[in-house]
């Protein structure tokens, strides 16, 4: 099998369609492992991984940890509150200390955009970005594409509408880059105050009216709305947001019949998406989570397993 010719996974903007295809294909084999009764392969036995989470996370952290267990890697998890960050140690010092203990791959979530680049420059270990500030969340973008591909059989020429707080969303950025590289059309919708300035830089279309934005869409993805955006004065109230930009059976009426409804979680029910839609058979929210483990197994394999076989 082919391998990735790179040390780190920092974002989908810098990845090629070929690399993304390789990851998605590898993830498919990984999902087979997950479907076995004994979900464990010895591929990464004796290899060590650090999960470094400077922000709280349930899904992503559990997903990476399970992927490591299924691949037989040894791993340590350090969370923001228990880390030396609170003791005033710099990120560089923290990771260098852990690296000399033999860590070969660092999975990091961090509140500052670009911190994954900073880390990758400062350690020899591979770095997988598990979300850096508002910049990228490449494994989420990959698992979303994996889910779409699984359900639709293709990514090319699909219309994907992403709704909500694009401006502050690393999930949106990774999806925008990844989906376009794979030939999908991306449209975004939401209030103008939640759109990134100079949106043209992403090569996407912005359609402020949700009903029109989902017209003919194959996939609609709602983003989690952070409550602090309201406090920042970017929109008036949650109920107004829900009324104008929330996904409901009425607001998505113009989408295709076989529309996939996605959400990276955790969901604010009744805000970004109605409970009715979230629990409907068009929603693939839980499939996204399953795909997440497969994608992370694939990345661990491609970064650590494929190359350094001894």
């Amino acid at each position, binding site marked *: 099998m082919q391998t990735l010719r790179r040390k780190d996974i920092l974002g989908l903007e810098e990845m090629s369609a070929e690399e993304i295809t390789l990851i998605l294909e590898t993830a498919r084999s990984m999902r087979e492992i997950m479907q076995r009764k004994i979900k464990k392969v010895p591929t990464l036995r004796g290899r060590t991984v650090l999960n470094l989470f400077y922000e709280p996370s349930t899904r992503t952290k559990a997903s990476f940890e399970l992927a490591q267990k299924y691949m037989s890697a040894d791993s340590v998890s350090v969370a923001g509150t228990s880390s030396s960050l609170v003791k005033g140690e710099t990120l560089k010092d923290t990771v260098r200390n852990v690296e000399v203990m033999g860590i070969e791959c660092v999975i990091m979530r961090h509140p*500052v955009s*670009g911190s994954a680049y900073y880390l990758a420059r400062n350690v020899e270990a591979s770095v997988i970005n598990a979300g850096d500030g508002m910049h990228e969340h490449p494994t989420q973008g990959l698992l979303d594409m994996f889910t779409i591909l699984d359900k639709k059989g293709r990514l090319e020429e699909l219309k994907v509408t992403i709704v909500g707080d694009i401006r502050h969303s690393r999930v949106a950025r990774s999806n925008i880059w990844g989906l376009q590289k794979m030939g999908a059309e991306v449209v975004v919708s939401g209030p103008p105050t939640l759109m990134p*300035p100079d949106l043209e830089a992403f090569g996407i279309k912005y359609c402020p009216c949700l009903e029109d934005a989902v017209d003919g869409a194959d996939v609609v993805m709602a983003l989690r709305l952070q409550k602090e955006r309201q406090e920042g004065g970017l929109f008036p109230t949650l109920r107004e947001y829900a009324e104008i930009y929330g996904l409901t059976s009425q607001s998505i009426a113009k989408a295709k019949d076989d529309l996939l409804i996605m959400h990276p979680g955790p969901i604010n029910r009744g805000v970004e998406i109605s409970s009715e839609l979230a629990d409907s058979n068009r929603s693939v929210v839980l499939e996204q989570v399953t795909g997440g483990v497969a994608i992370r197994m694939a990345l661990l394999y491609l970064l650590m397993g494929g190359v350094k076989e001894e």
Partner: protein
Amino acid sequence: MTTLLIKGGRVVDSFSNFDGQADLLIKDGVIEALEKGLKPPSGSETIDAQDLIVMPGLIDMHVHLRDPGYEYKEDIITGSRAAAAGGFTAIAAMANTDPVCDNPTTIHYVLERAGNAAVNVYPIGALTKGLEGKEMAELGRMKNAGAIAFSDDGRPVVNGTIMRNAMQYAAGLDALVIAHEEDLDLAAKGMMHEGSVSSVLGLRGIPASSEEAMLARDLMLLKTTGARLHIAHVSTAGSVQLIRRAKAEGLTVTAEVTPHHLLLTDRAVKNSGYNTNTKVKPPLRSEQDRQALWEGLLDGTIDAIASDHAPHHTDDKDVEFDFAPFGIAGLETTLPLLLDELFSGRIKGLTLSLLVDKMSTAPARILGLNGGALQPGSAADVTIVDPKRSFIVNPETWHSKSRNTPFAGRQLSGAPVWTIVGGSVVMKEGVIAEQE
């Protein structure tokens, strides 16, 4: 004092619009003569300036020396040595130290330390006490103690009434007010210029309007206060427009631009992979802004070039982007960067005479210094440049304590080789003369 003859150089004196071969005779710290074929008087030293360019000593009217309070980043002595190495004979030090330079005692402290400095150091006093923007500082007493201008640089004066009063009061003292134009609400927690690059990088943006809105306010205040107002580090096309219009209306406003805003854009943040040495306030702007700054510089809207030397310790900068302080250290790169632009011919209309005006004659005029000219009777502050000297920017070799530059590794042509302050050589070929 000795007599010094600088022989055979190309002399560029923007003050008298002179550009040609001439000899410069210095006696007792003052320029004695500027003529062709001067004979060295007995006992004089001679500098052979053949193939070199002789200009009035450069003046950097905007530097941060971090002293008192942050001497681990820089101090008055190391900052002055960096200035000498960079071809500057005088620097004006901003007031955002700890304690803030908002009182005559701190002005005295700076001047006393400056007595041992390599170049002339002029303290700028704070406009408001503690830079808090609440109460006017003792401008008159600080002026009597030796403050050369007044500024809360690093912060704007948020309250319009306080700015208005300070400008009006300063006018009565014929004191220069230097304004840092930034609407802090609009700049919010921004990390870089707001635009397509900040969007892609996921960094919070600092919109151009954050500078322009505050600048527009101060220009309106200028109409009735009659102050002399100088705008620090202009960074946007809109600001250039506002200043151009204000000057056309006859307002007494001057402005400066930094080399990094002239040479870099927001793309540098992306191309460097979030290098914190590209993090500066005002932020590196768009290509359109950058071009407008050159236009403004060439048409006289922008009067001066200043480094806004903002030294930081490597430990402070070697962190995640959001956590790093803003600032670029520029004393040892400003002149070479501009000489390189000039000699490369990249900027149409940029001449040596214009550069000398922006870096020497104009700052001297704005600050009211005896300098910026090579006329008999002027202070003998001279910078001599080798246009052929080519080198690679290496902050490890700096005289500054800091290393924070986005220009590391750049190949440049043109460098200062002699810096002369009051008739004494303070820098020769990069070596700083030790003070007695």
